[in-house]
């Protein structure tokens, strides 16, 4: 998930992005790269791995576990957003990263540029642990170049004690009742800013139709004066303090462990976001990279995610390890894949993504 870390970190990221793109040359041509010949019997202890992942998104001792089980060293690089790691990976040449954790639509974009190694399923037997639904995701049908790590959706997170009627529709956010005014927040990241309006219009979250986007913009401008703030990071805290009573939120970010905080997917539907693991074409440790992904898919390893950071994983065997008491406290963790799949998969929009950038700038700039 694009974890939105406070802006100071993002600005530090900007410095890195600038540094990383020195002499950047990205071509538009390309397409999926051809697979390398890999040796299933390679001596993994001669390899080593660098992974790039969001902070706190994997067990702290994962490198030690990998060293003990698979025999190679793993270095963990941290990225704060998809964008910062994309800047490193698309800068040209070898980024030094073997395995990157990026959201699905970014994996799609990397693959389209020929930057990813097509996966060798025979080296990842644990792919069998995935839910069948998790192998047919819109950005990569058949897991040709990515393995899903976490998945979830976007909805409304609210204080059941402070809202009069529990929300059921995106309309409750976009045309708030009088008691909700100045007590609601929306996300500002482009695709999620547009999402509630697009879904309320009955449109696709991946639409590139300008007339639809214009209608969405009108709805977003209309609600702007009624918002407390735009917030991608601290909406959970705002709910806890009561400063906000209803916020647009990712399921994993809604603090449902608190009494009176509930999460609902509006009836018009929502998105399905996925964070994935990909192997870079430039990696010189592809056998170790496959072994690493296979290890992450072990139920005991992957099960760390829902148990500790409350994200759903697309791994049936891992979800089965989760303590039922935890699922009871966090009903959104128990959302079955079939329901999750009702959400529309976010895909990369290439050139058309500029329309979303413009939309969010226009909404933010309007006074």
């Amino acid at each position, binding site marked *: 998930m694009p974890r939105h870390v*406070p*802006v*100071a970190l*993002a*600005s530090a*990221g*900007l410095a890195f*992005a*600038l540094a990383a*793109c*020195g002499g*950047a*040359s*990205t*071509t*538009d041509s390309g397409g999926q790269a051809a697979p390398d010949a890999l040796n299933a019997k390679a001596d993994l202890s001669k390899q080593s791995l660098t992974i790039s992942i969001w902070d706190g998104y994997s067990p702290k001792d994962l490198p030690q576990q990998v060293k003990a089980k698979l025999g190679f060293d793993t270095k963990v690089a941290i990225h704060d*957003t998809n*964008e*910062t790691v*994309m*800047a490193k990976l*698309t*800068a040209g040449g070898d980024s030094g990263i073997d395995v990157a954790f990026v959201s699905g639509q970014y994996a799609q*974009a*990397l693959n*389209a*540029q020929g930057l990813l190694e097509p996966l060798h399923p025979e080296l990842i037997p644990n792919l069998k642990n995935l839910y069948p639904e998790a192998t047919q995701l819109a950005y990569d049908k058949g897991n040709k170049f990515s393995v899903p790590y976490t998945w979830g959706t976007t909805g409304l997170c609210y204080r059941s004690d402070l809202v009069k009627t529990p929300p059921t529709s995106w309309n409750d956010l976009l045309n708030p009742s009088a008691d909700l005014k*100045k007590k609601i927040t929306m996300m*500002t*990241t*482009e695709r999620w800013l547009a999402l509630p309006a697009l879904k309320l219009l009955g449109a696709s979250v991946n639409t590139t139709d300008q007339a639809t986007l214009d209608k969405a913009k009108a709805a977003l401008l209309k609600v*702007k004066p009624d*918002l*407390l*703030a*735009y*917030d991608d990071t601290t909406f959970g805290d705002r709910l806890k*303090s*009561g*400063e906000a009573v209803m916020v647009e939120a990712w399921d994993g970010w809604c603090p449902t462990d608190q009494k009176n905080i509930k999460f609902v997917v509006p009836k018009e539907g929502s998105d399905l976001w996925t964070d994935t693991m990909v192997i870079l074409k430039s990696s010189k440790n592809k056998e170790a990279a496959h072994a690493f992904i296979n290890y992450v898919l072990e139920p005991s390893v992957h099960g760390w995610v829902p148990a500790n950071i409350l994200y759903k994983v697309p791994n049936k065997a891992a979800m089965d390890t989760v303590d039922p008491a935890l699922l009871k406290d966090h009903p959104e963790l128990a959302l079955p894949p079939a329901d999750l799949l009702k959400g529309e998969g976010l895909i*990369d929009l*290439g*050139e058309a*993504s*500029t329309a979303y*950038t*413009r939309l*969010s*700038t*226009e909404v*933010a*700039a309007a*006074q």
Partner: protein
Amino acid sequence: MTSPPVVRKAVARVVTLGPGFGFLTVFLLVPLALVLSYTVFRRGRFGGIVYQPTGENFTRLADPLYLDVVAGSVKIAALTTVLALLLGYPTAYMIARLPGRWRVIALVAVVLPFWTNFLIRTYAWIVLLNSQGPVNSALKALGLGPVELLYTDGAIVAGLLYAYLPLMILPLYSAIERLDPQLREASANLGARPARTFWSVTLPLSLPGVLTGCVFVFVPSLGNFVIPELLGGGRRIMVGNLIRDQFLKARDYPFGSVLALAVIAVLVLLLFAQAWASRRAGRDAS
């Protein structure tokens, strides 16, 4: 044989100036040159740069959407600067007239906030001003609230003012402190009342400090993107946010570079204007 003094002097210059210049060249000029070179190329489909020359990035700058953001930022930065001057001048004036020991204490007090991280201080404003915070609780207890204090342009200006007021006070102080007290005495001896002395002697002579302070406050206020996001709740974007978003969200380095360049151009013009006005003020005074 010892080297001649000329050579030694040259070596000393290289040794003393070299590291600083080298550092600035590598970390200021090179990135600046990169930014400059991006402005004439296209954005790649997935971000990055496509090396096809285009003037599109510059024409986009004239789009009312972006001009409005720039105009809004200038308005907020200008308001902050004026308020900083109104608050800072009397403060600096009184500090300059304090007895020596108190003067040091007062100056330390002015820079004291810099000892704490800027982000933490900004978050403190959120804690103070939010609808459940102590200020609003007190207002509610008095039957006056709650008042919407946070996530407004006013909160942005307050945050910027708080952050940059010391940058106004310090140059003002050094300009006022340098003034020869005999000039004020002469003015008084010639029959001017204190107010007249201030308007005709002190203020004109401290004008270079005023201009420096204004530039020091205006420039970082214009480029700030943290305060509009935190205290403005993202409801107002300033040109700093716009640039940041082009690089980090839109992955449009070329247009982000054009925006950055435009801001740099405005600031360079401002600095020239300040230098020119300071020189004029100095000439008129002498």
